[in-house]
Every structure is written in structure tokens, then in C-alpha cells.
């Protein structure tokens, strides 16, 4: 490999763990782009990130930019020579200024075509600059281009321009081959951070004889950095850190005799530490009587520890290879026991009174200043959940009972301490009281799904309570004039709407025993508005706003890689909040499938063309006056005949809610439509023929409109 190695290490104070990968990758991309832009393209570019460093390295980077030949333009060609055919004064002056001797005029001066005409031109060689002089600019540009989730001001500047970053930069190693790249970050009132050839390892450990922990060490290459760091308890490669972490977890799991619940957290944890280790901690068996959800909240959310399914143990990830004295384990155990003790106190307190008996306390929890307390909300939710459950054949009594107490845990100790347990806490308390599963699960699940993502409630009764909660909140807060504006959505109503849409979209498939009867968003919100007994005028205004709000969110619930925006828009052209969300979804999925297999490009183009040709009055006629006898040309007769067959098929399939065959049938019209537009002049001179042809197109358009707006499809589907 020719060329030199580039090595840049930006040493930082601890970068948030979940930023590390993105920052390293973004830094790498920006460096690579900078090298390309300056014609210093590397053979390879790569990056590494840890909590305390972002490293980019490049290989095979040229010593300097390649020389370039640049065309320098002089006066217009028409004035380059005088009447005698000799070089004019203007031309000669220009050439001399470019350093060309008169003897070379004939060989160097030439005509150049430009968009503005012919000009006198001279080709000049521009020697490339050495890379070491270009790299500081590339480095600055790349650092400024690193995508920061949140920038921090730290009184730093590069070249007098402020330089906010993820966290303060404490050292920079920047090498091009064995040369240090001249680069510095100035710090107001402090010492500049000047690029050098030294790095830093673990703050408190080193395996290098005679070196004190945290001391700097020299680096000469990526390989040297990697090895130097390894000897100082830092693993540079994220993949290797992950591997070590999993190994360390594995050792703890063997010791515990059970697999821990790690999941995707290992990916973030590997960037929380530079030298992953793990210790197994235990807590007294007595805490096993505490519901697992509560234990896990303590372990995962508060301590970032990994729980086990059944063992009274946990794993703590450490930034140390070992824990010979057991300090780390004992420390972690002490924290866990203290927090579990707290949690058990709250659990025991909350269990002293049956949840339903705490319902009066909801009077003291304000739902909204203008809408009263959660006590009233609970009443409305009972009614709404019962109605929804009843419509879909679920247990309305259970849904109503659950809805009535779903919010009671808000006044309890557990939720007061661990807000993320809302819903779960109530469900667990009801389970403890021995209530039927239909009831306690419905309470437990009623915050699900958080939006478009996440699990649905496990039962249709749970879904009914969730829908009641969302719909009541939307209806109420819109009545109170709290609809979101711009970026402000303090009551998370957008999320509430998406959650509602999501449940309605997926409920029929999720609860096979309750496929039908799920209300449309409109029906549900109408019912929810009833609960507030608004006067007619207020109600109409709010219903209008809710319609726009929900309709705006519908596309979000449908757009997916397999269902592109164009297809979604095509179907939503005649479907809105007043239709079944699940049915709309079915149409979209089926249309997307049909678009993939059939010729919808022709249909979309035809749809656009037909709409252009037809006046609104003719469109509204839907082809009522069509007289097949007046169709004279083969192409129009063919289209008419096919249209009648396909129309019957489409309408029959629609009636049976079998959309895919309907959309397939529609696509079979494409050849006849194409031939029609090729062969037939719609705007015939004879008014009767013309009117009849327009009627034929109107009928075609009417069939298209059954599906929606086909003209939307092409843009994104192809």
C-alpha cells in the first residue's frame, strides 16, 4: 500500500454511551469526505469510538494533492489577434501576466469554447499542496460535521470560531505518517488543546511496568495505539469490547446457574466502559417476593444492572478487569438492597388498601384544570371501555371494572417513586388481590402501546381500556383548547392519537376472537366527546379539529417499506378517520402488493389524464349517460367491454372486503386503456360521440375512485 497512514484520536471527557457509535461513524464519514474533496482520497478509512475517544484512521493517503492543469481564460478569442493575424496587445499582455514568453505564444495560446463563446485560454499546471498542510482544515471541518444529539458549549474555539462539542476535548493525537498534524483547539481562559502524538489509557489501571496509571504514552500508528491502549486497560474496538462484555456476563451466568436478561443493552453497555468486566451480585431471597417488574425497575432503570429470570442475583458491568477485594460487588449489592428495601416499603404500603377503595383519592389528582380530576376521568373511561368491549364482543363488565380503577395507582407510593411503573403497579396490586386475569391485565397493559411502536395490550378488554384512555384524553384536551401547536405538545396528544390508531389498526388481527366491531376513530372520539357533554356548537368545532388531527396522523400508521407513501396516499384519498382503520390498512397492504405485480403505472397515468380531461360535472356523472351503441372504434368498444367486466369484479370483491383480487382485476384494464389513448380521439368533433367518450372515461374514473386516487401511486411506487 502506497501513501501514508492518517491517525486522529480526539480524547474527550466521557461521551454519553449511546452517542459513541454515531459520533465515531459521523466523524469517519466527514474525514473521508474531506479527504475526497481535497483530492487526498484514502484507500481505506475506518473509525473506533469509546466513551473517552473518537478515533479515525486512513490508509494509503497521498503525500500531496495531485498536480492539476487549470484553464486560465483571457480576453475573447475574437480580439486575440489583430488584423494582421498577429497576437493582439490584449492577448500578449494576458499571456505575459501568466508568465509565458513570447516565443511560446504560438504553442501555448489557444481558443477555448465556453458557454459565453470562444475565449483565449492558457493551460497552467497547478502543483498540488502537501497533505500535511491541507489536513488541519479537513480535521476542523470533520469535527464540526460530527452529528451531535446535543451540543455542549465548553469555551472552545477553532480558528476563532466557537467549537461546541459532545463533551470537552482533553487531548488530540493527530499523525500523518510520523508527522504530527498542526492543529489546535483554543480554550478561552485555558490552555489550547494542541495535537500531538500521545494518548491516554485507563485512569486507574496500567499493566506497563514503572508507569503510573493515567499517564500519557506515545503513539505512532493505529496498531501502536491499539496495543498501547490494551496494555493500559482500554479496548479500542467496539466489537471486541462487546465480545469481552458478553464473555464476562457469561462467567457470571455460569456462576449464577442461569442466563441473565441482557437483550440489546449489551450494545450500549459496551460503550459505557472501555474495558468491560462484570461482577455477579446477590440480594437476599426475601426480595424475591417482590413482583419481578418492580425488582427489574430498580435493577435496570436505576442501576443499569442486568436481572435474572428467577435468581436473587444481578450482574453489574464494570470498567475493570477484576474485583479481587470484592469492593465493586459489595458496593453494588449495598445499593441494590437499599433500593429494593425502599421499593418493598412502597409495595407493602400500597397493598394495605384494596386498589378500588383508593378510587376516591383520584378526586385529588387533577386531570386538567378545566376538565376536573382523574376521578371523573375514571367514570368516563368506564363507560367508554364498556362500550368498546361490547361492540367487539369482549367482556364489557371486566373492561369497565378495569377502566374504573386503571388510574388508581397514580395516588400510590410505587408510582410516586417509580413513575415508569404506572399501570403495571395497578395491575400487580389487582393480581395480588386475586382479581380475574381479564381485569388485572387490562389495567397492567392500558398504557400500551406508547405510540406506533411497542406491544398491544394482551386482551381485547385491555385494548378497550387503552382506547378509552386515549380517546378520553384527546377529546377532553381538545375541548379544553389544548390541541398541540407547532412543536409544542405538552400533553403528548400526538402520541396518544398514534397509540389509538395503532390499536384500532392491529386489534382485529391481534384478537382473533374479536375480529369485528372495533370502532372507527371518529365513532370512538364521538363517544368520548359525549362523556364531556359539550354544547352543540363547541362539539362541532372540536370534532372538526379532531378530524383534521387524526386524519393528519393516519398516514404515519400506514407508511412502511412495503407500503410506500404513494400507495398510502392513493387509498387515503377516500378513507379517513370515519372508516375502520384495520380495513384501510388492509386496502393499503393489498394495493401495495397489486402495484408490485400489476401494471399500475398505466393506471396512474390514465387516472391523471382522465382527471385532466373531465370537467367536475362530467366526473360527478360517473358515466351515467354512456351509450355503448355510440362507441364506434374498436379500442373504445374493447375498453368499455372490459370496464364492465372489471367493474363488476371489483365491486363484488370490495363487498367481500377481498381487496387484493379487486386490485389485480383493476390492473388488467391497463392494456385496453393504453390502446384507447393511442387510438381514440376523445375530443371528437361530433358532440354526441365526444360526450359518449367522456362518459366512458367518467365511468372509468368512478371505478378508480372506488379505490382512491390512483394518480398518487406512481411518484413513489416505481
Amino acid at each position, binding site marked *: 500500500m502506497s501513501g501514508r497512514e492518517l491517525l486522529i484520536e480526539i480524547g474527550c471527557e466521557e461521551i454519553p454511551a449511546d452517542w459513541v457509535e454515531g459520533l465515531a461513524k459521523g466523524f469517519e464519514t466527514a474525514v473521508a469526505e474531506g479527504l475526497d474533496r481535497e483530492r487526498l482520497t484514502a484507500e481505506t478509512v475506518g473509525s473506533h469510538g469509546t466513551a473517552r475517544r473518537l478515533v479515525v484512521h486512513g490508509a494509503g493517503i497521498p503525500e500531496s494533492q495531485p498536480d492539476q492543469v487549470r484553464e486560465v481564460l483571457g480576453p475573447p478569442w475574437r480580439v486575440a489577434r489583430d488584423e494582421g493575424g498577429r497576437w493582439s496587445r490584449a492577448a500578449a499582455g494576458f499571456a505575459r501576466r501568466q508568465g509565458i514568453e513570447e516565443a511560446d505564444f504560438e504553442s501555448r495560446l489557444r481558443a477555448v469554447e465556453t458557454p459565453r463563446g470562444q475565449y483565449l485560454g492558457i493551460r497552467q499546471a497547478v502543483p498540488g499542496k502537501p497533505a500535511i498542510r491541507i489536513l488541519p482544515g479537513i480535521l476542523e471541518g470533520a469535527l464540526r460535521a460530527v452529528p451531535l444529539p446535543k451540543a455542549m458549549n465548553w469555551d472552545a474555539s477553532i480558528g476563532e470560531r466557537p467549537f461546541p462539542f459532545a463533551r470537552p476535548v482533553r487531548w488530540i493525537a493527530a499523525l500523518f505518517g510520523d508527522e504530527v498534524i498542526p492543529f489546535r483547539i483554543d480554550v478561552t481562559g485555558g490552555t489550547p488543546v494542541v495535537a500531538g502524538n500521545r494518548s491516554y489509557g485507563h485512569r486507574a489501571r496500567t499493566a506497563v511496568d514503572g508507569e503510573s496509571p493515567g499517564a500519557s504514552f506515545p503513539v505512532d500508528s493505529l496498531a501502536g495505539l491499539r496495543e498501547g491502549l490494551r496494555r493500559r486497560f482500554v479496548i479500542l474496538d467496539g466489537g471486541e469490547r462487546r465480545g469481552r462484555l458478553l464473555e464476562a456476563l457469561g462467567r457470571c451466568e455460569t456462576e449464577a446457574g442461569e442466563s441473565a436478561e441482557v437483550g440489546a443493552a449489551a450494545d450500549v453497555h459496551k460503550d459505557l466502559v472501555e474495558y468491560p468486566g462484570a461482577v455477579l451480585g446477590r440480594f437476599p431471597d426475601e426480595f424475591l417476593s417482590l413482583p419481578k417488574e418492580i425488582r427489574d425497575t430498580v435493577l435496570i432503570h436505576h442501576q443499569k444492572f442486568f436481572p435474572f429470570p428467577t435468581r436473587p442475583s444481578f450482574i453489574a458491568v464494570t470498567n475493570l478487569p477484576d474485583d479481587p477485594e470484592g469492593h465493586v460487588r459489595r458496593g453494588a449489592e449495598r445499593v441494590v*438492597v*437499599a433500593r429494593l428495601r425502599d421499593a418493598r416499603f412502597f409495595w407493602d404500603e400500597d397493598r394495605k388498601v384494596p386498589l378500588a377503595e383508593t378510587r376516591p383519592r383520584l378526586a385529588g389528582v387533577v386531570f386538567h384544570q378545566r376538565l376536573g380530576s382523574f376521578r371523573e376521568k375514571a367514570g368516563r373511561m368506564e363507560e367508554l371501555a364498556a362500550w368498546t368491549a361490547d361492540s367487539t364482543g369482549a367482556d364489557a363488565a371486566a373492561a369497565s371494572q378495569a377502566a374504573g380503577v386503571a388510574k388508581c395507582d397514580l395516588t400510590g407510593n410505587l408510582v410516586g417513586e417509580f413513575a415508569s411503573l404506572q399501570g403495571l403497579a395497578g395491575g400487580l396490586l389487582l393480581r395480588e388481590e386475586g382479581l380475574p386475569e381479564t381485569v388485572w391485565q387490562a389495567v397492567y397493559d392500558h398504557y400500551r402501546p406508547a405510540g406506533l411502536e411497542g406491544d398491544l395490550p394482551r386482551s381485547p378488554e385491555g385494548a378497550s381500556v387503552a382506547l378509552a384512555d386515549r380517546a378520553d384524553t384527546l377529546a377532553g384536551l381538545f375541548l379544553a383548547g389544548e390541541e398541540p401547536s407547532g412543536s409544542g405538545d405538552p400533553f403528548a396528544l400526538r402520541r396518544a392519537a398514534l397509540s389509538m390508531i395503532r390499536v384500532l389498526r392491529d386489534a382485529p388481527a391481534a384478537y382473533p376472537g374479536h375480529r369485528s366491531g372495533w370502532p372507527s376513530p371518529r365513532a370512538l372520539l364521538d363517544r368520548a366527546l359525549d362523556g364531556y357533554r359539550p354544547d352543540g356548537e363547541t362539539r362541532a368545532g372540536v370534532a372538526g379539529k379532531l378530524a383534521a388531527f387524526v386524519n393528519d396522523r393516519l398516514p404515519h400508521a400506514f407508511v412502511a417499506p412495503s407500503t410506500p407513501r404513494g400507495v398510502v396516499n392513493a387509498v387515503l384519498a377516500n378513507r379517513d378517520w370515519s372508516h375502520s382503520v384495520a380495513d384501510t390498512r388492509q386496502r393499503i397492504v393489498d394495493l401495495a402488493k397489486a402495484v408490485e405485480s400489476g401494471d399500475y403505472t398505466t393506471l396512474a397515468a390514465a387516472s391523471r389524464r382522465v382527471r385532466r380531461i373531465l370537467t367536475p360535472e362530467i366526473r360527478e356523472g360517473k358515466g351515467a349517460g354512456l351509450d355503448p351503441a355510440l362507441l364506434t372504434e374498436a379500442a373504445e368498444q374493447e375498453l368499455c367491454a372490459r370496464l364492465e367486466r372489471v367493474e363488476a369484479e371489483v365491486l363484488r370483491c370490495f363487498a367481500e372486503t377481498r381487496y387484493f383480487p379487486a386490485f389485480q382485476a383493476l390492473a388488467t384494464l391497463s392494456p385496453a386503456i393504453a390502446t384507447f389513448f393511442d387510438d381514440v380521439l376523445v375530443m371528437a368533433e361530433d358532440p354526441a360521440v365526444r360526450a359518449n367518450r367522456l362518459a366512458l372515461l367518467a365511468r372509468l374514473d368512478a371505478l378508480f375512485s372506488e379505490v382512491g386516487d390512483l394518480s398518487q401511486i406512481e411518484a413513489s411506487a416505481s
Partner: protein
Amino acid sequence: MTFQELIAKLTGYWAGQGAVVVQPYDMEMGAGTMHPETFFRVLGSAPWKVVYVQPSRRPADGRYGENPNRLYKHHQLQLILKPSPQDIQDLYLESLAACGVDASQHDLRFEEDNWAAPTLGAWGVGWQVVLDGLEISQFTYFQQAGGIELAPISVEITYGLERLAMYLQDVEDVYDLAWARGVDYRTVRLADEQQSSRYAFEEADTAALGRGFDEAIAEGSRLIESGLVIPGYEQCLRASHLFNLLDSRGAVSVSDRPRRILAVRGLATAAAHRHLAEP
């Protein structure tokens, strides 16, 4: 190391680094950040180094002296360095070493934890410092205070003294801490915890607290307008504490909350702006 030795050690360490040692502010407050030595000093460009202990009241955390980890009133050791020294993390680790924490034998982490105090119009970015799973300090680079963008940036380090002391003394119950040789935390503080919890949860007259809150806001606005920034800010502290008391009684409704927070924030912001305007 006793509780008072820990305080002396940390205070002495930072005094050795050039920090001015000041005393706790003589008013109730929820955190050391609210002390004028932090709130006003982080504004403007004048360099400043200060360290102090601030007893911090969190009425909702009162547990009648029955919870081994939770207190109505705990102690924070608060440090402000402006501008932030570039080796601040090392200095901080040295301060722990001075208290006997051997970093090579413990897992010490800086975990992302951004801080925001809506009532002060303040926020910053930084970490919670976690020692073997126990959060012992809050480490924050102030970005804004009183609604004002800050430059230079101050670093604030807040040590949770009870937690750190429990760790160092290896005790499970805060009341078992040795405050001084032969004198435990129980002897010094238990009665205060019991009585303050009873006051906050049972006896406080919420109507009077609510009136007091409104009076403090009105008085504070008046004082700040007339240029008495510090007395005005003291009314902001008073209002903030009354709000916390009301909150611990469950007497702040969801809709009342934003109004009251905005009122306190309005005072803090006004005080900050006025402070910068006056030479």
C-alpha cells in the same frame, strides 16, 4: 472518616485549589445550586471559585426518620469553578482519593446525566458520578442560568455527603453514620427529621403556604424591580421552598403546577437579568 471529617477534608481540598469557602445560605432551599454563590456567580464573565456545604430540604423525601436512605434534609457539598479547569475530572478524582477512595479498586464512572432546573431557568450537561453503582456526585457544566446563555462555562460538582459518608464508613443506615467520634447522625439529626416530616405531611397549613407563595412572588418582583436583587432572589428561594412543601402535601394540582413553576422561574430570570445589568 467521620461525617464532619469528610466535610473538612473536601472543603480543605478545594480550598487548597483556590476555592473560597463560604457558609450555607441561611434560608431553606432544595439544593446547593440555589445558593446565591452559585446562582449569581455563574453569570457574567468574572472568574470565581467557591465551595460550601448546603443543607438541602426536600419535603417530599421526608420519612419520619424511619428510612435508612431518605431524608427530609440532606447535605450537599457544592463546588463552583469558573471557568472550568481543563483537568477538572482529575482534580475531582483526587478529591475522592483524599477521602480514601482507591480508584484502582473501585468501579468509577461518569454516566451521562443532564441537569435542568426549570424553576431557575437553568440547565447543564454532565454526568452522575457512580462509584460501584452508587451515585455519589453530580457533575455539571452549566450552559444556562436564569434563562441566560453562559460564557465562560462554570463547572458545578455536588457531592451527596450522606451517601458518600455511608459508603466510606460502610454503614447501611444513614442514622448509624458517625457524625463525629462517638456521636452518630441519629443523635444530631433524628428529631429534626421526625418533626419536619410531621410538619410537612400532617401539620403544614396549605392555605397559608399558598398565600405565602403568592406573597413571596409579589414581594420578590417588587424588590427585583427596585434593584434589590439579592433580597428579591431570597423571595424566589422562599417561594420555591413553599412550593415544595405544598407539593409534599399533594396540594399542587397538575394544572396549578406549571403556573407556580413559571412564577418562580420568572423571579429567578428577572433576578439574573437585573444582576447582570447592575455593575
